[in-house]
């Protein structure tokens, strides 16, 4: 299977600070991809470059064979690459219904609006109960559901989740992980950034350790690694 996304030698950063140094990775060849590694080493920056929020200084980003590096976020969303950013800030004063309508804003997604809405409600029945409520009045877990639901409304061909379980209570986290597994089983390939390695090992087939703005280690399917090895990657020897 060809990779749906391949990042080739991307360098990017903010102003004069370079965060990503010639980073390369592939997604979609073996299934879902997990990114992990210490905070502040470029995972979020990489995702921002992929989704068009940040213009890479050099390198290519191929989505479905087309170079999307430097394209507008709108064009990238239009192509079906959907990014759920970290921290579920979203649109605090809009209702859940409004967020779902926004998710289906691109012409491609609008064709599937009703079908995707049904999918979101099936996946997150809690949201249906609070359909007209403002996002700011929801709990952290519910807000994360709205974030992911909004992304599903965009009819993703590749879904990127940046720390979906960050700061959630364990019970809610388990529920959300189950929902993410459901989405994956529904046929949407995922790229997930997570600190919870157990969840990543369960969800993904291929892992990248991102360190100092580059891929430090790639773990392909079949290659397993134990807890101790991961810990040493995080903290050094």
């Amino acid at each position, binding site marked *: 299977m060809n990779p749906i996304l391949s990042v080739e030698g991307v360098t990017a950063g903010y102003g004069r600070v370079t965060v990503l140094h010639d980073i390369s990775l592939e997604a979609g060849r073996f299934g879902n991809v997990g990114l992990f590694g210490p905070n502040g080493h470029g995972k979020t920056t990489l995702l921002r470059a992929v989704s068009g929020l940040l213009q890479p200084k050099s390198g290519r980003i191929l989505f479905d064979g087309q170079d999307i590096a430097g394209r507008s*976020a*709108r064009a990238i969303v*239009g192509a079906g690459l959907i990014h759920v950013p970290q921290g579920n800030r979203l649109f605090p*004063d*809009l209702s859940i219904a*409004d967020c779902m309508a*926004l*998710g289906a*804003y*691109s012409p491609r997604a609008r064709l599937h609006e009703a079908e995707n809405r049904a999918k979101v409600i099936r996946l997150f029945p809690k949201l249906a109960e609070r359909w007209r409520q403002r996002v700011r009045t929801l709990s952290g877990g519910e807000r994360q559901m709205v974030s992911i639901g909004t992304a599903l409304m965009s009819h993703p061909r590749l879904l990127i989740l940046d720390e979906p379980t960050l700061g959630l209570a364990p019970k809610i986290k388990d529920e959300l992980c189950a929902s993410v597994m459901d989405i994956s089983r529904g046929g949407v390939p995922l790229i997930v950034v997570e600190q919870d390695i157990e969840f990543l090992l369960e969800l993904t087939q291929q892992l990248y350790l991102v360190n100092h703005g580059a891929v430090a280690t790639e773990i392909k399917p079949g290659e397993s690694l134990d807890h101790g090895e991961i810990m040493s990657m995080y903290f050094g020897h």
Partner: protein
Amino acid sequence: MSALAEILFGGLFQGSLYAMMAVGLALVWTTIGVFNFSHGVFMMLGAYIAWQLIELGLPAAVAFPIAVVVMAGVGWILQASVVRPLIGRPNIVLVVVITTLAAGSLIENGALTIWGPRSKQIPALIAGNATIGGVGVSLHQIAIIVITPLILAALWVFLNRTRLGLALRAVAQNEDASHLVGLNVTALYGLAFAIAASLAGLAGIFMGGYRFMSPVMGSDPLLKALIVVVFGGISSISGPIFAAYLIGFFEAACSYYFGLYWTPALLFGVLILTLMVRPEGIFASRSRGLA
């Protein structure tokens, strides 16, 4: 009885003009997060364009809508030239204050060069006068009092009941997230400016119909609109609308009881008091958003 009628009428009339101006300021602030100091110039330009079109022989009923549409274009261009290039820079609020002030000054002096300093007037929306409750009023003013709430209601419907309005409200709340659902943020910024400029231009046409026009006619209404948005809170659309009418009534009452001379002083007294007691504005919640 006639005192009350006079205050009521004066308040409604002034409030309408202030609301038209303040809503545009608030729209631009909530969506882009900048303050547009050329807003008063939009008002002047709307009136002058209407005057020019009438001078060219167009009937007022045609000239007025054209002027309003042209103002939308002017707003868009101004946004693209002195606001958009600065987005993302540090201190954008302050920088845009300067650039819009500068653009406003250029346009004001441009108008002075093109049209000259002599005062002009455009026809009233409806000619004639009437007496209501013992107060003599012009039909033009009645028309403004009736039309303004309709336009503001239309704006509300647009913002709250259409997909494009939803997109504008979304951009107001979270720019990154707006990019990530595929909104054309740049175009929405332009749209916010275009709507604001159109409303200001219309306010200018309203004003040119009962008062003499001059290139600096927009500066006083801009000042009043500033007071209104500080008073009502700039973080929403409805806050400034209520505040505009309140300020209008307040001004009418002050003029009636204390005279025109004291009105500005009292108005600023209210402004200072508001800033001390409730700096976010009396109708504001503490967040930004169009509602």
